[in-house]
């Protein structure tokens, strides 16, 4: 009973992390159709953003304020990843719209360079980020079942990001412009929308959310130059499984993969669990090639 409860929670928790790393991709890949293989590196940038914020707090502010660094770090991570994403869109990605496979290779190159850059700046070894004390410990539901605050925090953060994204995309003027451009570039341009600006901004937001993910991941995982590579394939799987271009699909994809991964891992072992999950995804796509929530089009190719 306890085990079931805590495993359900673990499944949810894994799903929330998957969702967090996939949300940014749901924008850059899902909406803009850019296969951003450097997405993992934006997560890494976010993680280092948290590290830098922590170092600055440590060296300049009194110890009592240290715990406040984390909310600041989330903001800093978002801003840095946003800025680098913006820069990347303006200098590179804009040449690659409509060439998904080329965007894949080029952004892979970007990923390599960002990794090496991080290595040059911060050194190859992992760095440590101390989590704020208010996130230590956990909520004891009943004896033997502890829900760690960090996990709860991440779930809440994902929910917040999701609501924010929903409101932005579907309820704001900027979001309406964004959707207009993504659906019909020429028409949107005719209506006086600056498609260039919308493109850059959209890509930057996707990158910024990856930055938030990176910041949150410092609570539970390693922080090093190559951490992006651990998450990138999972993130793509979530988006593809859910159905490209649908926010709801991404949520469903993350839940599906997270829960099944936890279950399979519990029943077998971590390696086999991973293989089974991927096999299930491949099998599922046989049945629904466009993912759980497909967008239908009438175009020829």
């Amino acid at each position, binding site marked *: 009973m306890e085990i079931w409860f805590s495993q359900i929670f673990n499944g949810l928790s894994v799903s929330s992390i998957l969702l967090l790393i996939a949300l940014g991709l749901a924008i850059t890949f899902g909406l803009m*159709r850019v*296969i951003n293989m450097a997405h993992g590196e934006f997560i890494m940038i976010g993680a280092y953003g948290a590290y830098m914020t922590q170092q600055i707090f440590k060296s300049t502010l009194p110890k009592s304020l240290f715990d406040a660094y984390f909310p600041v770090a989330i903001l800093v991570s978002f801003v840095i990843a946003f800025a680098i994403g913006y820069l990347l869109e303006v200098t*590179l990605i804009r*040449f*690659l719209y409509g060439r*998904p*496979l*080329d*965007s*894949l*290779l*080029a952004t*892979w*190159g*970007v*990923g*390599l*360079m960002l*990794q*090496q850059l991080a*290595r*040059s700046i911060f050194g190859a070894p992992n760095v440590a980020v101390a989590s704020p004390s208010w996130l230590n410990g956990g909520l004891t539901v009943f004896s033997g079942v502890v829900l760690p605050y960090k996990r709860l925090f991440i779930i809440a953060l994902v929910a917040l990001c999701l609501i924010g994204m929903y409101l932005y995309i579907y309820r704001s003027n900027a979001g309406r412009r964004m959707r207009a451009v993504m659906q019909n570039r020429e028409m949107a341009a005719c209506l006086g929308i600056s498609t260039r600006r919308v493109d850059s901004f959209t890509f930057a937001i996707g990158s910024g959310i990856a930055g938030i993910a990176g910041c949150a991941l410092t609570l539970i995982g390693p922080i090093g130059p190559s951490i992006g590579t651990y998450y990138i*394939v999972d993130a*793509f*799987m979530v988006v*593809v499984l859910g159905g490209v271009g649908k926010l709801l699909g991404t949520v469903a994809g993350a839940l599906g993969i997270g829960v099944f991964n936890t279950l399979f891992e519990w029943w077998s072992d971590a*390696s*086999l669990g*991973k*293989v089974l999950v*991927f*096999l299930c*995804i*491949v099998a599922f*796509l*046989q049945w629904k*090639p466009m993912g759980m929530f497909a967008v239908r089009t009438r175009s*020829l*190719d």
Partner: protein
Amino acid sequence: MLSSSILPRRVWLLLGYAFAAAALFSAPLYLNDFRLNLLAKCLAFAIVALGLDLLWGYTGILSLGHGVFFGLGAYAMAMHLKLVSSGSRMPDFMDWMGLTKLPWFWEPFKSFAFAAFMGIVIPAGLALVLGFFTFRNRIRGVYFTILTQALVIITVTLFVGQQAYTGGTNGLTGFTKMFGYSLKSGTAKTMVYLATVVVLILAFLLCRYLVKSRFGKVLRAIRDGENRTRFLGYDPSSYQMTAFAVSAGLAGIAGMLFVLHVGIISPTMMAIVPSIEMVLLVAIGGRGTLVGAVIGAVIMTQAKSELSASYPDFWLFFLGALFIVVTVFLPGGIVGLVRQLRQTIIRRRSVNEINLNPVVPESNGVI
């Protein structure tokens, strides 16, 4: 390029091929052990690049899972070599993992012919199965590419996890003999090298035949408009499956040769990074031209060996930049660049000579 007006282009082309072949065949005469080995490795990669080019450059399907096919071929050959080298004993790693008997599926690999056959059939067969399920369900483009990454992860995890049967992360190594000869002798190495050259030439001729045949034209048609070919009455999925299987088979052959040269195969060689680097070979040389694939493979493998040692930090920046520059600014790769230069020259000359030759057929990727 003035000389091209003296001799017909065809002669130049044949001369070029002949020179390249002569240079390759005579390499053992003037290269030392290390260089010859390195060149042999390049040529093995050139074979993968040919197959990838057939798939990506001509059919428009990008596979980021060719490391798997390469690896499967390599493992087939490595299993044979391991068995031969272990003599009557079991391979050492099985011993340590507590196996008491050689697993049944290892048994037939004692035969070289079987191993070589499987080194082609297993990758090609796997590609056929994967292709059957994806292409027939119209999973294509980016989705297919991402699925090939899933394939990589599944395969690597399985190979690492089944240590008793595959040697785990250490892979298979410690080969000493083949056909009863020591692999360490100079003659054996030269023979293996020459075999690689021959296989590369055969692979090149095969690919050349494929892309020049009507089959190849249909492949390019599928690349340009898959659905359109469907309404002409072609079933694109069977063409895609064939191209994928041939490509995977070539990767398998390359893997077998690679093992002979390098003496080790491990799951890391099948992972995502090597798979993507294989694609880069094609991108650098020029996708959609077979010569480009070979040139890309040779230059990149050499460059990696030279640059990564002297400037390990710089190397990754360089590699990253190369990905970006080639895909964004030079989609035609080296061959494309040369072509552009030639066009410029022709244009300039035709302005001077008021060349009235009306139609300059844009070379369309056929060698």
